């Protein structure tokens, strides 16, 4: 079976069609946001002010890349960061900005999983550290916002060309591969 191809932006219906265990490749618009960008976006949203970028239906990428500038910005290395760091901010972020998919590593909390079900969003696990494979699949930088946060924390808007393979690890129907594996690991650990 050849892996499924998906494109950002995508509809809520398509995001809801992604099921845990599937392997996909992602093309289209991808925006990075880590801790600091989440905090700033939420501050603006609470004040009722607009963001300088559109997140609705797009792919949110938990990533702090290494970029290099000659004439244009170029992606040097851009693997995923640990998504769990954003857990305490993600529910409010998802409700406010409604991305269709999150790309990251390590998975997120049950609370975030519940919010993903509420808005129709899937979590796509990308291999941690696969920075060169990621850079290859991100051939174009469309823009950068909030550069004052520093290179890793700024919001980079990039065009993806078959980013992956990505494992649908958490879906909008309440399934999480991470939690299933973790629960098995805990039971086995008790026997050691």
């Amino acid at each position: 079976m050849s892996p499924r191809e998906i494109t950002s932006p995508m509809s809520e219906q398509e995001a809801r069609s992604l099921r845990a265990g599937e392997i996909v490749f992602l093309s289209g618009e991808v925006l990075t946001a880590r801790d600091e960008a989440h905090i700033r976006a939420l501050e603006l949203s609470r004040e009722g002010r607009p963001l300088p970028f559109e997140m609705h239906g797009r792919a949110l990428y938990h990533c702090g890349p290494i970029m290099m500038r000659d004439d244009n910005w170029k992606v040097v290395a851009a693997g995923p960061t640990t998504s769990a760091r954003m857990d305490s901010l993600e529910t409010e972020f998802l409700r406010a900005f409604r991305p269709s998919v999150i790309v990251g590593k390590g998975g997120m909390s049950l609370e975030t999983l519940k919010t993903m079900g509420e808005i129709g969003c899937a979590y796509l696990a990308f291999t941690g550290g696969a920075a060169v494979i990621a850079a290859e699949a991100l051939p174009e930088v469309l823009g950068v916002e909030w550069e004052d946060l520093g290179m890793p924390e700024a919001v980079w808007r990039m065009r993806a060309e078959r980013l992956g393979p990505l494992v649908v690890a958490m879906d909008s129907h309440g399934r999480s591969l991470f939690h299933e594996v973790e629960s098995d690991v805990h039971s086995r650990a008790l026997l050691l």
Partner: protein
Amino acid sequence: MYSSAIIEETVVRLLREAECRLPPDVRRALENALSQETEEVPRSQLLVILDNVRKAAERSVPMCQDTGVPVFFVRGRYDVRIEEAIRRAVYRATEEIPLRPNTVDPVSRGNSGDNLGPGMPPVHFEPTDEDHLDIAVLPKGAGSENWSALKMLNPSEGVDGIRRFVIDCVVGAGSRPCPPTVVGVGVGGTADMAIALSKKALLRPLGSSNPDPELREIEGALHQQLNSLGLGPMGLGGRTTVLGVLMEKANCHTASLPVAVSLNCWAARKAFARVHPDGRVRFSQEGFR
């Protein structure tokens, strides 16, 4: 006395090798892991990892965007200019390789942009009276570093307590430190020593035999038990949770049993150089015996 310029050049090259080339012992361990996995999801993770490693080396670019904090271990005759040369090398490597500017003020979170600043980079100096100078670098990413742990056990908990704590650390960290991980364990000393030992342990080649027979036995048992957990590559399930367990020990207070754990992600980066007074330099990614 060593030439500062030679040390600076050596450290820039060490950083480039460590960041762009996975040490051969770690690559072999990952290839071995791939041969153990049968399911599609864990195999897909290891295939991406090995492909990524190959491309990073071919293009001489960092294998992971988290180029970490470069932790240095230096053995030789103390000379403050060694640390100055290391700092200059980190500054240069940040631009030349490039490394991601990772270090910030812990309170304001302001980023200096050059991976330097108070306390950065960390340099562990072990004075010796040998003619050569050994410099090792262990670039440590935050994904794994954030799961470092120390526990002051009750001495009566013994080997079983040590074993239990290491298992709890790996289970607690779960998918987040980018498994399959390398598990560094420091036993004994004072609290600060135990942590330093757990980092130093990560420098030993995977698959090498611990010279201490008791530690060798604990390492072997833990390796097998941790891989029976089923956490798998990137925590998505599978047979390979760790690539190895490496332990170091020091004597401790009779009323203490400190145990520290430092996890390293699959990108277990390290590089070694031996600088001779006549200016000759040898490089290795598995250390010198």
